[in-house]
Structures are given as structure tokens and as C-alpha cells.
């Protein structure tokens, strides 16, 4: 994931990635909380951020899962219908599982 040739910068990038991995579970928990209280727009923003940062830190699968959740939440109107809510929860479950896995692998 990196192109750094300077070992010091390489080490900094590795440290940043490990730090990021260490926050993934709490990010997923925060997302769950936003969804469960119906803060759809905040949840979308959080998913959108994770979509970008996970990809850039080299967690491609997690980034893809966050992208799916971001896309689903973007289609949600003020009050999502039951089918949309079910889809959000399904995508969120996938994301949480990947976040946990990435957190373990990335540290």
C-alpha cells in the first residue's frame, strides 16, 4: 500500500495504519449507535468517511463494505421503510465483522 522508500516514513505509515486499525471497532460501534437511534445522515457521513479512509489505509474489503453502507444510506429518505432498514442493518453487520477482522489483522 505504500511507495515510501525512506524507512522512517515507512515506519510512520505503518504506525498510522496500526493506529487506524485500533480505532476500527469503536468506529463500527459508533456507526451501530447512530443507526439504532435513527441518525441516518450522521450514519451516512460516518460510513462515507470510513469508505475513504479504510481504502487509503489499505483495508480494501472494509472500504468496500463502508461504500455499500454509504450508498444504501444515501438512498434513505428522512424515514427509511422497513426494507431499507433491513438492508442497512445487513450492510452494517458485514461492516462490523470486517472492522473486527481488520482491527485484529492490522495491529
Amino acid at each position, binding site marked *: 500500500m505504500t511507495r*515510501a522508500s*525512506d524507512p522512517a516514513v515507512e515506519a510512520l*505509515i505503518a504506525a498510522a495504519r496500526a493506529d*487506524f486499525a485500533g480505532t476500527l471497532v469503536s468506529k463500527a460501534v459508533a456507526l451501530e449507535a447512530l443507526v439504532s437511534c435513527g441518525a441516518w445522515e450522521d450514519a451516512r457521513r460516518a460510513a462515507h468517511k470510513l469508505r475513504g479512509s479504510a481504502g487509503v489505509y489499505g483495508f480494501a474489503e472494509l472500504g468496500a463494505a463502508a461504500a455499500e453502507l454509504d450508498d444504501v444510506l444515501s438512498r434513505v429518505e428522512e424515514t427509511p421503510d422497513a426494507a431499507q432498514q433491513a438492508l442497512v442493518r445487513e450492510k452494517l453487520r458485514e461492516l462490523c465483522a470486517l472492522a473486527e477482522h481488520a482491527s485484529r489483522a492490522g495491529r
Partner: protein
Amino acid sequence: MTQWFEPGEIVADVYEVRALLGAGAMGEVYDAHDRALNRRVALKVARPGIAPDYLVREGRALAAIRHPGVVTVHTIGKHRGLAFLVLERVYGLSLERMIDERRGRGERFAVGEALDLLVAIADALSVVHGAGLVHRDVKPGNVMLAPGGRVVLMDFGLVLPHADRAGHRTAAGSLQYMGPEALSGDIVEGAAALLDVYAVGVLAYELLCGIAPFDGGDSREVYRSKVRKPLPPVSRLRPDVPAALGDLVAQLMAPDPQERPQGAEAVLWQLRALRSRVGAGTEARPFSVLIVDDDGDMRRALALYVRAAAPGAEIETIGDGRTAIRAVRRRVPDLLLVDLDLPDINGIEVCMLLRGMRLGDACLIVSISSRATRADVELLQQLGVRSLEKGPALVTQLAEIIERMRPNH
């Protein structure tokens, strides 16, 4: 002033005219959007009554040259009976404006900085001369400083083949920068390229000393100043300039063309040799990057990737659009990386504001997003903003952009 093309007009079914960029004695230049290739271009139009040959000559001359220091020509055409040339849209500041701004602030160009500019100009000019052409209008107003330190020689409206004896008998160009032999109509066969060498000398004097040496007066007075009145030596006005550089500037402006270096390539080698002796990096401004993203994780990652690609770069990170605009006002970075999904004013608005205020002209703006629509990307392209997608490929793309901006690092 008459505008030959109107904003919104579609020229030759392809080029949508946006705004007039400038007008001169020979014609006008417009900002336009190429609807077929979805890119911004510059349209140069010959004034009615001006022989359209001059645009053809300019177009053909530019087509013969391929060099980052020379503006690229795309095509030539006619619309409503008006000849036009389609050119690369170069974003940036003219050297003239930069000199004026420095003068206004009482600042001078550092020796290394002036040499970097002169090397780039001589490099472009050596390619022009190598193609058998003479520019004939080298001056700060025809040098653009584009993002990434690119120096571009513009306006080839007066270009002539080296061998066009009849053409060189007609004095053309800007009085201040014109060799005295052009003013007296006394250009020796085979020596036309030395007019450009002279102009580089005047430009070098102005860069180093902060004064335009032959400013004011009619052509007769200027001619007399050029051949009879020696200028104060560079070393007197700038004691920090190496003596060899001061001597070279004096040689470039020698009234007798045969006493000048015999072509841009000879000038280039001398300038390069001088540049290598002037403390590398001691005066040059470090490569600077401004990162704007509301996500702290992204800011940290981007800063590290920039650092990996550009060791020694000055990196500033900011979390919102308003602060970013203030930062660019304070100091224009070489590269601006801006997230589109910002909370207050979004990234597209930031780009529009910067381009609208002409604050971001001298920097390369790259937008970074994970969900830009096609319309967003097209709009950004029209603003001269490159779009990248957040994701695993971003790191490589970013490194490539930085490498292209800093080819000698």
C-alpha cells in the same frame, strides 16, 4: 472594446466560449471549453483585418515543438470568417505579474530562484531555436508560471523561421526587450535568433535588479539607450549576484549581436553551470502541499503519503474549507489536495472560490473524493482541477502526480 466571440458562443461546433482572457494588437484570447474532449482550452482569434497568416504561422511553429516549456497547440480553424487557434489552457501567473508583485512588496528574486526561471526559459527557447524558429517576443508577459514550477513560453504570434530574411527586416516585438539591431533594421543573415538572446538578457536584468532597464521613451530613445548608454552593472545593484552571472547578463545584452552567446542553447549551458554553483536548495522555496479534509484519519494518511513522495515538502493540514481559503490567501501552495465532502463549504465550492479569486492559479488543485458524480468531475475539469478517488490506488496516483511536479527531485 469589441469582443469577436461572445461568452456562450459555440465555435466550430466544439468550443464553448467562456470569457475573454486578454486582448492585444493582433487579436484576442478566450477561455473556452472543448465539448468534444471535455477540457479547458484557450482560443486565440485574429482580429479582422490582420492577415490570418500570422495565426497559421504561430500554429505551425507550435506544432513543430513538443516541450513542457512551450504552450501546446491543439488545432486551427475558422468560425464566422474569423481564424482561430486552439491552444492548451495554461493556468498560472505571468512572470510579469510576479515581478510586479515582488516589486510592490519591495522583494527581489533570490539568485537561485532567478536562475531557475532563466534556465527554464532558455531551455524552452533552445528547443524553439532548434526547430529553426525565432520567437521575437520574449518578455515577462509571455512567460507563464504554471503549477508545479512549470515555466511556459507563450504567445508565438511573432514567430518567424530563422531563415526568413524578409520577415526579420520588419521590427516586431516589445520595445524594451527588442535587440537594437531589430530597431535599426540591421539584422545580419543567420543572426535572427540573437534577438531572443538579447531579450533573455533584458529579462534577466529585470529579474535580478528589480528594474526594467529600458522602460519608457520612443523607439529612437530606447535604441540610443541600448547602444550608447551602458547600464549599471548587475553587481552594483545586486552585490550578492555572482560576478559570472552579472557578466553573462551583460553579454546577453551586448549591442553587437556577435558579442552575445550564439543561441539559446549556449545561454542554457552557461546558466546551468551557474545554477550548479549557486547553493542548491538554500534559496529555493520548498515544495509545499496543503491538505484539506475533515477526516483526521485521512489528513494523517495523506500527509504521510505526500511526505513519502516528496521528502522535505512543507505540509499543512486543515479540516474545513473556510480555513483552507484563508490559508491559500496567506500563501499559495504548490499542490492543494481537497476533499469534496467538507462540512461547511464543500470541496467544489472551495475550488470555485479559489479559481474565481485567482488565488489558486499558481497551484495544482487535486480533488479527492469517494463519491464524486460525473457532473462533479466534469465541473472540476473545467476548473482545471484533477479528480482522484479515495481508495487503494490513491497512494500511487498521488505519488505519480508529485513526481511529475518535481521531475528533478
